[in-house]
């Protein structure tokens, strides 16, 4: 095992590399290129996933998979896989496997129109950089991989670069992500200045209390931006829709989770949690993200923006778990903390499955109708029925509806909150209760949001010619979505399978095992999941629902006789000219909630007639708009200030004369020497 496991990981990484190289070499033969790149990715993922599972189950401690020391100071290319890395890698490999199957079909519409070789090269290297982020052990190496990951994903975001909105999205993304990396880099430098080491597996004993606090805040901002934590989420709803759908699935499914990994690796494992306010801060931000994320998602008419905002919400749920965990660890309640961490990790894993699936579904919609605008969709469930069914599964999963996996994560989060409400810690208790309320409200909003997502896009009458002419998607796309849907159902019915892995992970980072608390006995076909007497049996619930449906059918047959059905038009109040325009639109659907939460959206509407009066028969134009608080009050003023500052300084500092610039260099160098002399 000791020998075999590293080889598996190395083989997996190597296959990605080969895939990347081949996609460059074969750039002229696009069909083969597409097939080979994705097949390589799939093979690598299978190897990697197997290796990750084996690592978590049978190997303790970090497992070195690659080691090379460079002559560049501080930089050592050491890759190790420990249980946290392996867990995130597992999520990555499973998702990549499904997405790669999908890409075979999805990328086919690029063939002959775009540079498929380039795309596949970027795609494989993007995955590779994520693997490196999860496995690097040296802070500088980590930073380089982190930057590379951002840059490659940037290229993928702007892949369809002819659209100006994509360019803008890319620019916003790269600015935000670089700001974030700057914070992370500063944190690393502070760490280095105290410990003289960039080793991530080292000890943080030399750090004084105050600088630990500062480092925590820096990491929170840095990783929070990547995770899409409100108010640092602005790039997310722009970048995800711009990227091709398979890339958005990876970005939302796993790339934003690198931030969760970062928080765990650097804050939990490296710094060690000493202060309860760290957890309180994360919990509060998580609560805000949960509520606002889904509230903004509900208002969106663009399917991919909707999904992007919903990612913000799910990151919020994960952070609620993480925050509770940090609080409990700060109070040295190891069991309760481990329990909350279980919830967070489980939701991380589950989210990568169903959100990945939802983005793939959105890609399928876009593939078959060429639009992302919900107001132009409708009636797709008759045109692409298989896709519709899988998207329905994902929608149920994300709405935390039993028996899908989303529910398990949410249930554990609730239980973690419940268990952590202890008498005698007033402030924290009330915050935890507010978190329950926020999760409840968000739960309701998520259902509304995904009823809208599925109902408006797939049901009813087609709202445009494109939706009417929707074409069936390639088989590979449906296969990959079906695979993800099956996984969602599987982990929903048998949560203990994944929980066994999560438990090992938590055990390895100083938590205690919660599996003893999560008693599960193997009974017939289902595992009950039980915490201190609160048990759930998802499989039994599914079984009971099915039995009830069958019983109902039988009883109806007995009492009601044969089922007679008549097809007829929808009831139209005798008007006899029902058109698709008379259905509720996406905007109309979310209007009541928009009015209820108008303080968040600040909606405005404008009514204008082209003719003289509003009562004439001229066409009347009715426009509604709503605005985001953060973009209006936080980012626009900041951007304006930067702009005006640059304008003012443009001619004084940036004079354009070489002599001036040389003077700047001279002065800087002199100042630095002075600094070194005196301090």
């Amino acid at each position: 095992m000791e020998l075999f496991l590293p080889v598996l990981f190395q083989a997996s990484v190597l296959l990605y590399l080969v895939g990347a190289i081949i996609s460059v070499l074969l750039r002229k033969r696009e069909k083969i290129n597409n097939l080979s790149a994705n097949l390589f990715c799939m093979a690598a993922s299978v190897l990697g996933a197997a290796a990750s599972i084996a690592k978590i189950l049978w190997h303790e401690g970090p497992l070195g998979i690659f080691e090379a020391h460079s002559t560049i100071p501080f930089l050592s290319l050491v890759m190790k896989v420990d249980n946290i890395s392996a867990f995130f890698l597992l999520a990555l490999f499973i998702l990549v496997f499904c997405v790669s199957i999908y890409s075979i079909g999805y990328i086919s519409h690029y063939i002959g129109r775009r540079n498929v070789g380039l795309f596949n090269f970027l795609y494989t290297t993007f995955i590779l950089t994520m693997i490196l982020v999860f496995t690097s052990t040296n802070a500088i190496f980590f930073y380089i991989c982190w930057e590379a990951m951002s840059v490659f994903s940037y290229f993928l975001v702007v892949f369809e670069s002819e659209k100006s909105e994509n360019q803008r999205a890319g620019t916003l993304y790269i600015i935000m992500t670089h700001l974030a990396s700057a914070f992370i880099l500063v944190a690393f430098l502070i760490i280095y200045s105290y410990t003289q080491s960039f080793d991530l597996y080292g000890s943080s004993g030399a750090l004084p209390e105050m600088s630990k606090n500062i480092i925590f805040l820096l990491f929170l901002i840095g990783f929070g931006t990547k995770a899409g934590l409100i108010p640092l989420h602005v790039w997310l709803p722009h970048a995800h829709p711009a990227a091709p759908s398979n890339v958005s699935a990876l970005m939302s499914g796993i790339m934003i989770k690198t931030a969760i990994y970062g928080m765990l690796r650097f804050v939990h494992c490296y710094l060690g949690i000493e202060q309860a306010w760290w957890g309180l801060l994360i919990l509060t931000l998580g609560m805000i993200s949960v509520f606002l994320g889904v509230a903004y998602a509900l208002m969106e008419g663009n399917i991919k923006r909707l999904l992007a905002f919903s990612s913000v919400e799910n990151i919020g749920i994960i952070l609620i778990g993480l925050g509770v965990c940090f609080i409990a660890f700060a109070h040295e309640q190891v069991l309760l903390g481990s329990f909350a961490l279980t919830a967070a990790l489980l939701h991380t894993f589950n989210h990568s499955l169903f959100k990945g699936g939802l983005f793939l579904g959105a890609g399928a919609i876009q593939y078959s109708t060429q639009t992302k605008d919900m107001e132009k969709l409708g009636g797709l469930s008759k045109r692409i029925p298989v896709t519709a069914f899988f998207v329905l599964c994902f929608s149920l999963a994300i709405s935390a509806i039993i028996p899908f996996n989303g529910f398990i994560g949410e249930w554990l989060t609730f239980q973690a909150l419940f268990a952590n409400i202890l008498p005698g810690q007033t402030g924290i208790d009330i915050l935890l209760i507010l978190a329950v309320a926020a999760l409840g409200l968000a739960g309701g909003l998520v259902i509304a949001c995904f009823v809208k997502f599925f109902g408006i896009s797939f049901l009813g009458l087609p709202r445009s010619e494109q939706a009417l002419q929707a074409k069936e998607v390639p088989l590979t796309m449906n296969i990959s979505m079906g695979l993800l849907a099956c996984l969602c159902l599987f982990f929903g019915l048998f949560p203990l399978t994944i929980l066994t892995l999560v438990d090992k992970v938590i055990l390895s980072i100083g938590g205690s095992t919660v599996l003893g608390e999560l008693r599960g006995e193997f009974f017939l076909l289902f595992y009950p999941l039980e915490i201190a007497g609160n048990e759930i049996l998802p499989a039994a619930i599914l079984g009971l629902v099915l039995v009830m449906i069958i019983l109902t059918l039988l009883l109806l047959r007995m009492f009601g006789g044969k089922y007679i059905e008549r097809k007829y038009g929808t009831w139209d109040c005798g008007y006899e000219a029902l058109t698709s325009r008379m259905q509720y639109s996406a905007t109309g659907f979310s209007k009541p909630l928009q009015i209820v939460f108008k303080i968040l959206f600040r909606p405005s509407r404008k009514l204008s007639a082209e003719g003289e009066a509003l009562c004439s028969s001229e066409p009347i134009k009715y426009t509604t708009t709503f605005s985001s608080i953060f973009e209006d009050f936080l980012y626009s003023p900041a951007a304006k200030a930067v702009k005006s500052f640059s304008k003012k300084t443009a001619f004084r500092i940036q004079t354009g004369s070489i002599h001036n610039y040389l003077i700047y260099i001279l002065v800087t160098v002199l100042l630095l020497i002075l600094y070194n002399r005196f301090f």
Partner: protein
Amino acid sequence: MNNLIYIFLQALTILMLAPLVNGLIRKMKAFIQKRQGASIFQMYYDLYKLVRKGSVVSEVSSWIFKATPYIFFASALVAAMLVPVSTIILPKHIPGDFIVLVSVLGLGRFFMMLAALDTASTFGGMGSSREAMVSTLIEPTILVSLFTIGLISQSTSLSQIMLTVQGAGFPLAHPVYIMVFLALLIVIIAESARIPIDDPSTHLELTMIHEAMILEYSGRHLALMEYGAAIKQLVFMTLLVNVLVPHDQIIAFTGFLALFLSLLIYFFKILILTGIIALIEINTVKFRLFSIPNMAAFAFILSFLGILQYFILGGSNV
């Protein structure tokens, strides 16, 4: 095996009783309004009649429209299995706690809202959109108030909660329970589409919420939707009376007679609650749609004050 029998017994009790409760509410309303009113068994007749009729299905709709009545009905029945009607027939393992209850009801609601959008009718969309609003606003109240009682009994399992509360003497005199009681009363009104949130007996597009969603249904599909809604209503009522006004502690003996007595008391409690609901329905007018948030905020505050009182009054000594 006993487990399964008990669980099915729960469901059967609620299944048999649900239409009767609807009939009782109507009868009481009629009584207060000095009308004769329909028989209390009217809903059984209606259901029987509907079941024997064929269904008209819109040409526009997909499989979701036809599957929804079954899923909705089954989810309501499974919800009924999670809320014990009597702790005398308490199964050893109930397959879920109140979080599962919320999720199972969510399953039914999800499909009902989808089915409403499926027929491309304006009414359906309207009902679905409004239901989204009402249920969203009421959701935090359900969770927080159940959490409060859960904290008192240190469990999220409904059967465990009921057993603990039975030991608490007369809980309704206590502020925490009063708050939760009032909050859950508002929840019942909202969830079972009653005045002042929604009017179950009208088909006016300005006011419809629940009725708008099931407008396209007919025949046995309609019967299932109506029946499912009635079951859902009784599930919430059972939750309220059995958690906050427990009764099984006064029965000192066991056996079939005890079960019979317990069910009788249960039925009596439901009867009183029906009276309260009928009184509320008679004495209020339907709210404007956008007054519902006020009511929801008030319900939430009730539940939140409840949990605050729990902390203020020192937690465990409730």
